[in-house]
Structure formats: C-alpha cells, structure tokens
C-alpha cells in the first residue's frame, strides 16, 4: 500500500481514540446520573430541597453548556 493508506489508517485511529473518549464520557454521565438517583433514594444525600437544586443545576447547566456550544460554533463558523 502507499503512504496515503497509512495516512488514512492514522486518521481512522485518531477518530477511534476521540470517539472512544466521548463514549466513556457518555458512560460517566449515565453513571453519575444513576449514582445521584441511587444516593437520593437511599437518603444518603442532602435534603430534598438541596437535591432538587443540585438536579436543576445539573440539568440546566448541561443545557446552557449545550446551547452555548451550538451558538459559539455557529458564530465561529
């Protein structure tokens, strides 16, 4: 094969490394979510009110990050 093939394999390996990182980030997100709910159910966290604040902060913080990134990317492009 030619050096173009090697370059292609390198790009595939880079894609794999990136997407595998994203996959584990997704898994971590789910685990954090499940852990939070489990602790909440077991009563091992804070008061119901504080738990609600934490939950809201996670949800709306995530939403702000998401839309912030979309708008930033749009402006940049």
């Amino acid at each position, binding site marked *: 094969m030619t050096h173009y*093939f090697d370059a292609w394999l390198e790009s*595939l390996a880079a*894609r*794999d490394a990136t*997407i595998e990182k994203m996959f584990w*980030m*997704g898994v971590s997100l*789910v685990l954090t979510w499940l852990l939070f709910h489990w602790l909440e159910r077991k009563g091992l966290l804070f008061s119901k009110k504080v738990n609600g604040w934490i939950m809201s902060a996670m949800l709306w913080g995530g939403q702000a990050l998401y839309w912030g990134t979309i708008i930033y990317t749009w402006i940049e492009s």
Partner: protein
Amino acid sequence: MTRKNVLITTFIALGLRMFLLINAPLWYDESFTAWVSAQPFGAMIDALMGDTHPPLYYLITWAMVHISGTNPVRMAFWLRLPSAIFSAAAVYQTWMISQSVRWPKRAEIAALVMMTISPFQVFYAQEARMYAFMQFFVLLAFWAILDRRWKLATVSMIALVYTQNYGLFYMVALGLAALYRERAALRNTGTWLRLGLVFGLPILTWLPWAWVMFYQMSIIEGGYWITPPTAGAVISAVYMVLFGLAQAEPIHILTVVGAVALLILAFLRLIQKRPQGFVPLAILGAVPVILPVIVSWVWSPIFLYRGLIAAAPALYLIIGWWWGRISKPVLRWYAVTLVAPVMLVGLVNYYAHNPKGGTDRLLGVVNAIRAEYQEGDIIYHVDAGSMVGWWTYGDKEIPQFKAPLPPTCQPGEETLGGLSAHTRRALGIREVPLDEIRHNRVFVVWGQGPTSRSCWADYYAYLIDGEPFHLSEDSRYVLSGVWLYDN
C-alpha cells in the same frame, strides 16, 4: 397516531427526501449504478457477478436508466427517485411496526419524527444505491412476522437476500424475532414446519446466488477496503445511523456523549421495565450491529455503517419509548431541546454541504479535458475509478483506455474496492499499454488515494513526471489530476 396523520407525516418525509434530490452530482458508487444499469440486461448481470452485491436493486435502476437516458441530471433524478420513495415508505412502516407491538403513542410519534428528519435516512433516500430499498424489505418482513403474515414475510425476505448481502444478517434478526413471536407454540411441530418454510424458502431461493456470492468473495479476497471494526468504528457507526452526519467539532463531542448516554439509559430502562413488544424491537436494533462485528472478527472485515440503516427504526422506537416515559413535561421538552438540534443541524448541514464526495474533483478533470481536447487525442486512466465517474459526466465519444496490471504487481493486486477484472471486462473497458495505442496526445488521468497499491503507483510514476495539466487534489490522502503528453 391516526392513519391520516401518519400519511401526512409520510408525505412530509417524501417532501424532505425529494427536496434538492439532484443538488449533488452522482458520486462514485452512484455512477457505478448508472453505468452497469445502462448496459444491456445480460451484460449488466455479468458485470454484477464481478461486484459485491446481489442484483435485485439493479432491476429497478436498469429500468430507470432506460427511461431517463444518459443525461446526468435526468439520470440522477430517475436513479434516486426509488430510494426517496422507499425511504419515505419506511416512515409508514415504522408506524405499522409500532402498531403491531402496541407501542405507546408518544414513543410512536417520537420515532416517526426522528425517521422523518433523520439526516442519515435522508442521505440514503437521495442516493442511487440499495440501502433504502433494503430497509424497506427488512421492515416489511419484520412487520409481517409480527403480524403473522407468513407469505408476505417469505416474499419480503426473498427480496431482501437478493438486495444486499447485509440481508443475511437481517434474516438472523428476523428469525430470532419470529422465534420470539411464536414462543408460546414452539412445542408444536406445525410451528417449526411453518417457520422452516417461511425462512427455508428465502434461503433455498437464495442458494443459486450463493454460488455467485462465493465467486464474488473469491474475486475480492484480500482486496477489500473495509478495515477491522474497532470499538470506535462501532460507536461511530451507531451514532451516525441515529443522528446522521458529523457536526462541527465542539457540537460533535456533546452530541456523541449525549447520544451514548441516551442509548444506554433507554436500553437500561427497557430491560428493567420490559414493555410488551420490546424483545423483537431490541433484536432488530441490536443484532444487525452485533453480528457483522462478530463475522468481521472471525472471518474478514465486513462491518459497514450504512448496512445498519434498517436497525434505525427499532432504535428510534426504543429511544422514543424512553422519552415518552419521562413523566414531567418540562423534562420531556428538555430532552427534545437536546436531540432536535442535533438532527435538524445535521439535516440542514446535509442539504447545504451534501457530502456525496469526490465528484467535484472529477468534474474539474472533465471540464479541463473537454476544453483542451482535439481530434486524435485519447484519455488514459491509470485506475478504473476515474472511468466510473467519466462514464456519467465525461464525453463518451473520446477514446479511453485503462492501464493494465503492471508486471511488478501480483495478479489481483489492484485498487482496494475498485472494479474487478470481471466487471471491467463486462463493461468493455480496454486495458492496453500506452505505447500500443495510436494517438496524437494523451490525457493521463491519475487518481491515487488510500486504496491504491504502491506497485501501481511506482510502476506508472513516469506518467506523472512533470507539471500537471490539471491538478484536482494534492493532499495527505489523495493525489489526482491530469497530465498531458504529446506523442
């Protein structure tokens, strides 16, 4: 959803699939479809025997090209039209399946919306290849099995195995779904006889083609371009099938992370709650992803993301079910604000920058040669790849030849995934050393990329000695252009 609303959704889907249908030129694979379909019927079948796909889809495209003629724009419309129609039909079929498994209404709506606007679905609805066609038969057979319409299931599966080799993986998924559907009656011999007939007939009917398929596999052995499926390749494939084409980099990270989280949560909840009808859907969503990975490990790499297209409706129904179960409306809409932009941005991106790649390079070559061509000139393609696009967009009257296998290469040591010698013969491609062709001037068309072989590039390097007449691309991955020589 009522039938009327589903029909309206299906027509919206058809509209999205017809919108800018011929905006992008036919790319390499589509031009191949066009070229073989324009042959006399016998020559077309002969050409396909040297390719990697079964012939059923080409019966339609053969008719289409013979209706449209070979004008590239008309041909693009007529060749892509069946894909658009079959893809829109898949929206209706998703509803039929949802009704069969008595899926919740909210989940049904979510799945139908995602099917309608999915950039991945729209991409293959506007491609003159067999993927939308394959999806149609998978969903028809799946619905027929759920509804115990065994004759329809049999006919659909016969069509499926003659449409795409991935049909065999879907047959396994359909078989498992049928076993589950009939699980209460498996002690009954009659059930086994019926299932044997329903699945045996497609396999028996396929057997004559199996010989051809083994021949095809022997031709391409060691010369196929698909790389072994890594974990990254599988994750990437599932993401693409669900949410379409790559977004801009920062959004891409968020959407992949979100999609992974969404799928894991949906499957976890599905296994926990086990709603009625979830098993067949989980089978259709997971088996076509898992089986090709296993086959790739134990035999040869064959995992290809576009083959997973027919798993998408089941995955959308599962994600829709999870979404529909979110009890608080505010959280349900929260989820919508995360998923909808991914799909809509993907769809708009698709229309704006249709990534059916590579043809721009070829059109540059065509225009450059057309502007300079004189009587007595010839075109010499070092690789057959450029001949495929040339057939669609170039002047067919200009004499064309292809460089033969260099003596420094082993037999079969050719461009990975390129036209096989069998197909080239059937298409009437002339392979002659340049010094044996009478000509005034020669346009050498050079296309070298990741799938090219170094023995070809080294042997024919003298043909690109000097300044190019037209350089299409000189990048890390591709060197392509035209070199012009006087005799």
